[in-house]
């Protein structure tokens, strides 16, 4: 069976490299790359790294959130959003004028939608 998925490789890499450092780490990574080459998975290395980063962050309890707003937000507001999600938060910002106002916060697999556009849509639906 040679059907391990990208996320399985990422997970394996994480488990193998956890707690390793210096020479050992290099050795493990070299072994991993060798394995990928043998299984002809080098093409997918970008996705494996991506998956590895998100898996490692999850394991270490770091939450990644993406805040979308209509204009660039005040740093104090961003700080307040960070606070409400707990300590280890990695925040990325995105500016999309289409949402008109408010914010839209995306975590791993949920979206908290407090944008003006969605509110107006709901108002429209309730009036119809």
């Amino acid at each position, binding site marked *: 069976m040679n059907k391990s*998925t990208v996320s399985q490789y990422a997970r394996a890499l994480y488990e193998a490299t956890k707690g390793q450092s210096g020479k050992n780490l290099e050795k493990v990574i070299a072994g991993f790359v060798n394995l990928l080459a043998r299984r002809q998975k080098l093409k997918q290395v970008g996705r494996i790294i991506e998956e590895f980063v998100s898996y490692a962050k999850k394991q270490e309890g770091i939450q990644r959130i993406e805040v979308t707003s209509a204009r660039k937000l005040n740093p104090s507001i961003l700080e307040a959003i960070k606070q409400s999600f707990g300590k280890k938060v990695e925040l990325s910002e995105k500016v999309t004028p289409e949402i008109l106002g408010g914010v839209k916060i995306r975590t791993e697999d949920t979206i908290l*939608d407090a944008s003006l556009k969605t509110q107006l849509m709901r*108002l429209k639906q*309730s009036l119809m």
Partner: protein
Amino acid sequence: MSIHSIVEELKKHISEFEKKVEVEEVGAVLEVGDGIARVSGLSKCQASEMLEFPNDTFGVAFNLEEETVGAVILGEFKHIKEGDTVKRTGRILSVPVGDELIGRVVNPLGQPIDGGAAIRSNKYYPLERIAPGVMTREPVLQPVQTGIKAIDSMIPIGRGQRELIIGDRQTGKTAVAIDTIINQKGQNMICIYVAIGQKESKIARIVAKLKEAGSMDYTIVVAAGASAPASLLYLSPYAGVAMAEYFMDQGKDVLCVYDDLSKQAWAYREVSLLLRRPPGREAYPGDVFYLHSRLLERACRRNEKAGGGSITALPIIETQAGDVTAYIPTNVISITDGQIFLESDLFYRGIRPALNVGISVSRVGSAAQIKPMKKVAGKLKLSMAQFRELEAFAQFASDLDPETKKQIDLGQRLVEILKQPQYQPMPVAHQIAIIFAVTNGLANEVEVKDMREWENKFHSFLDKTKQALLDKIGSGEWDEKIESELKDAIGEFKKNV
């Protein structure tokens, strides 16, 4: 209402509107193709929950796996790309139901495709529902009058029964079902015709025919044409029965025609194979029996206590070269309460409907026949059985003893009167009268080839002069007096011819 009050109303609405943060669970498309999408995330997704893809496209969660969800896309999927956001809706797949749907042609999601107005219904029924249990059911006792002589007399169908119509292509399976729908006019029955994988031209022809016959006033057509994606073909019978269940819950009787379930099984096989479910016999997945049994089990006659109402199911199966031992035909034969076999060689011999009376059965319907029909049908069945045994000798007509000859003669007359043109269902009283006349030898002097003409004249004679008698028979009355009245009527007709 004045403009001012409308504005006030709007103001009130807007001031009452509360801001709410919407929480949405999302996932991302990992791969997409052939109407199937694999989605990551959506860890709390339910089985058969609707998922929202970009551009208002919906899908259904089918396979819930460790890290991914396998979803079938309902409709167009060309615009969906890898990485697209997929939202959970929290709703189990359901269709709009209600009186608004009557007379409409809709797709399996309940959206109109007849070019008419949008369907405004606020009632939704889930597609998948557990069939009514034992305690809510009662025996099938009321008849469904199909208007087809051969069926109503020998293979009677009751309200709440599941009767399979099976045969090769081009043997008149759909014709039997459509005639039955046409004959439900004034019978207090709502009809649902589910077209699965049919040619769009055929669906259009059927709808036009139903309109012409005035049958669209009590009929819903659920259509998933041959060009519809497999997901819709697979779901369409469930959509049909969900609409039927709404009317049953109102205590009404419903007739559901699934035309045809072999195409639905193909569609389900396609979806299952694409989702990599293991194939079994004939490459169908292991649960293809459950696919049909859970659908047909929802047809039932409910007792008064549970609200009454009934769903009668007429599933259609197309066989290949008369092979009823293939996987799907045997499955559906074992689920249903009887089957109507249509054969192509009978069809080409001009016996239409091309019913094979010998192997067609109805396991529960005879209890639902009205009394006069029961009386005349007994004799008819016996004579037909004897005729089938002797049929092979018919070509030696000159060398036969008079008794055998008489039976063959009677059989030939009966075959003649059981023929019936399409779109001409016959009221039950007329059926009884003609079967009575022939089985009792009252038409023996008529040549076999003139039989049908004689029959037509006989019916118009009854219509003109014996309406009261027909009404009595039609309402189920039968005693010696009526029998002799009928005999006298036949005698009177013969004198006039």
